[in-house]
């Protein structure tokens, strides 16, 4: 921990991050009690990339993403979003980001329309611009019918979609989405991916976390693998997969030997 801390401070002083990079993470670390959740990681997310963030349960994905988005204060290390330091000027940095928080509740007593509108207004957007964009978002998320239903009555997938719409309304430069496709039906999922692809090709940056390797491999052009709070590999998809499938590379990196023996009694 100590060593990481020192490299962290040195990096802060010596190298200012390139504002052309969407997100730069240096020596980011967080400890909960005795457990090191994120152990001084470094990541660079190039602008205009579709970045996948994969790792087993409890690897530190959500902790990292929380520290990137202002929800969790890091013990040490820094995060820059397009050159803006998240923990020194959080309001400025957040204005560049659109965030989907995994597992967070929404305001369930608002209707879908109200929730998306609320998110836009909280961003300080003009009311008429918000009013223009909300119906578009409802349409692409296939939520038009449920637009005036309370989010409390939405299914898990619909809640995910309305939260995603709320994260996109201000057309941010960078989208950080924790498990965006979980519980979302395949039709909506394909449509959302198409929208995100278009967004990336127009210069936007998307970072998603997922357990579904196949989806990440098909969708993303960059990937980082994290396990036990450490980045095991990161870079372009070709560099990381190196000819194999992402799933094989991933399992090879994170699995420990003794867990792989299986259940001797589990057969009929």
């Amino acid at each position: 921990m100590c060593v990481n801390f020192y490299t962290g401070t040195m990096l802060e002083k010596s190298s200012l991050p390139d504002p052309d990079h969407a997100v730069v993470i240096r020596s980011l670390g967080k400890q909960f009690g005795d457990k090191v959740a994120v152990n001084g990681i470094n990541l660079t997310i190039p602008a205009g990339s579709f970045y996948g963030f994969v790792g087993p349960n409890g690897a530190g994905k959500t902790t990292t993403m929380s520290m990137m988005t202002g929800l969790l204060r890091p013990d040490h290390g820094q995060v820059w979003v397009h050159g803006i330091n998240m923990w020194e000027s959080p309001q400025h940095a957040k204005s560049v980001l659109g965030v989907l928080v995994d597992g967070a509740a929404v305001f369930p007593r608002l209707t879908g329309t109200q929730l998306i509108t609320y998110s836009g207004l909280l961003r300080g957007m003009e009311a008429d611009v918000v009013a223009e964009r909300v119906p578009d978002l409802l349409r692409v998320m296939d939520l038009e019918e449920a637009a005036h239903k309370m989010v409390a009555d939405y299914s898990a997938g619909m809640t995910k979609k309305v939260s995603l719409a709320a994260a996109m309304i201000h057309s941010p430069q960078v989208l950080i989405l924790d498990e965006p496709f979980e519980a979302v039906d395949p039709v909506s999922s394909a449509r959302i991916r198409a929208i995100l692809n278009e967004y990336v090709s127009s210069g936007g940056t998307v970072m998603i976390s997922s357990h579904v390797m196949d989806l990440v491999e098909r969708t993303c052009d960059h990937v980082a693998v994290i396990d036990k709070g450490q980045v095991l590999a990161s870079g372009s998809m070709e560099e990381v997969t190196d000819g194999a499938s992402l799933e094989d590379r991933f399992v090879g990196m994170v699995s420990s030997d003794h867990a792989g023996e299986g259940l001797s009694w589990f057969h009929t």
Partner: protein
Amino acid sequence: MVPHLIRLRYVLMWNSFRRSVGTMIGAIFSALGFLYFIVMAYILASVAAFAPPEEVTYTDRGAVFVLCGAVTVLVWIIGPIVFSTSNPFTNPQNFLVFGIPNKTFIPGVVLGGVVAPTGLGTLILFLTGSVLWGWHPAAIVAGVLAALIGTVLCVIIMQVIVGALNNLISRRAVRDAMQLIVLVPLMLAGFILMGAIETIQEFWELLPQVATWIAFTPAGFLSLPWFVAQAQWGMAALHLVVMLAYIGLAAWAYNAIVNCATEAAGTMRERQREPAGIGLLGRANSPMQAIWARSLLYWFKDPRYAASLILVAVFVLFGIFEITILKSQDFSLIPKILPALIAYLLAFSISADLSYDSTGFSLHITTGVRGIDDRLGRVFGLLTWALPLTLLLTIAMVFATDASHEFAAWLGLSIGVLLSGTGLSAVISARYIYPVPPPGTSLMAQPEGGMGRIMLVQTVGMLMQFFIALPVVIPAVVALIVGSPAWGIITLMIGVLYGAGMLWAGVRIGAKWYERALPETYQSIVKVAALY
């Protein structure tokens, strides 16, 4: 399987303690309170036991005892309705995927309920029934038997009623309405008790007769030692048969409910349609206005906030009742204080705002809302209607109680209490998070043992609010005692100026705290939300 289900309760409880020290402290306080209650019951029972039967007749002690049993079973039923979802055993659907046969599931839940802390406490409380009669071996045995039957009945009746309600109220709209309706008698309980105390003399004479009626209802399970002590053997035998029949009946009903829950799992659908339009949010054009509009909407759309509105309505009705019907001189102060009291409660009500948002608050964080916008939006969301309401109630009260000479003092008090209290809430809610029911769960859902912690935080908060209101309360008291109009004007001026000053300071400090500790606040929200 039965011992396994019993052990599960203790494992769940222990784990909730390990996760949160606050929960454990709360549980210890609850346990101490309960222990105190038990000790008092035994002291009373012993006093009765050593008194000669000629002085304190068996009829009287038994009648009181039977009624206490009936009250306990009511507590057992009302408790889980009010605090529902706190205990995973009250909803059989939680055990759906394990495919436990009813034959083992039902005894497991019932026995588990008996040996759980609340069940054991109830059993020990009921065992006073074997102390009550002095040295009377048959009555002692009957007392032990009645305590066992009583505890089992309490557990099983609770499971039946809560289970039936769970099946009934799967629809959100119905559930919301139910929760608010249940609140009203609870809020009125104090007033009902006051009325009961006034008529207690007449009630005392009727007591043995009432107890005899209750003896043969499911709530009369403590009558066995009473009949035995009075050597009414026939009644005792009949009573025992009836009680065992009730247990059988309740078990049968519970069996049906478990079946119903397993068969109906996942088939409930929401059919309600919401009106179109975006309402107040359509008028907002800045982050502060958006939060203002959303807070206002929540006062009417979220039952957790709407409960406060119902409380206000109950208070107002009570005031009207006091003034128009009782016209009692003894109580003339109560309706006069009501507007200020309502102002006090309303100001306190937003001190849990972030706790109520639960993890939905992440939206305010990730969108980079400024502290001042958040604080002002929430404060305006309350004051928009609470300030006019307080003024209106004060004016109405002054006219109704014919106290126009005290108008300035009461008005100053109400305004001062409302504004200074709101200011304090703006600071408290910016940083202190305590367990409240998360959105969508039961209005009064409590984590295991969380009750004591909430009471602690709320008591401290309400005391602080009182101290902050003192600069208005003191001149108001002086004005009312001295009866001087000059002091009344002084109170009004202090109320408005001091109140506004405290509100301004509260919003500023709250905004500062909000921004300084935003991620830490969010993490405590996450921690608290995980308790449920």
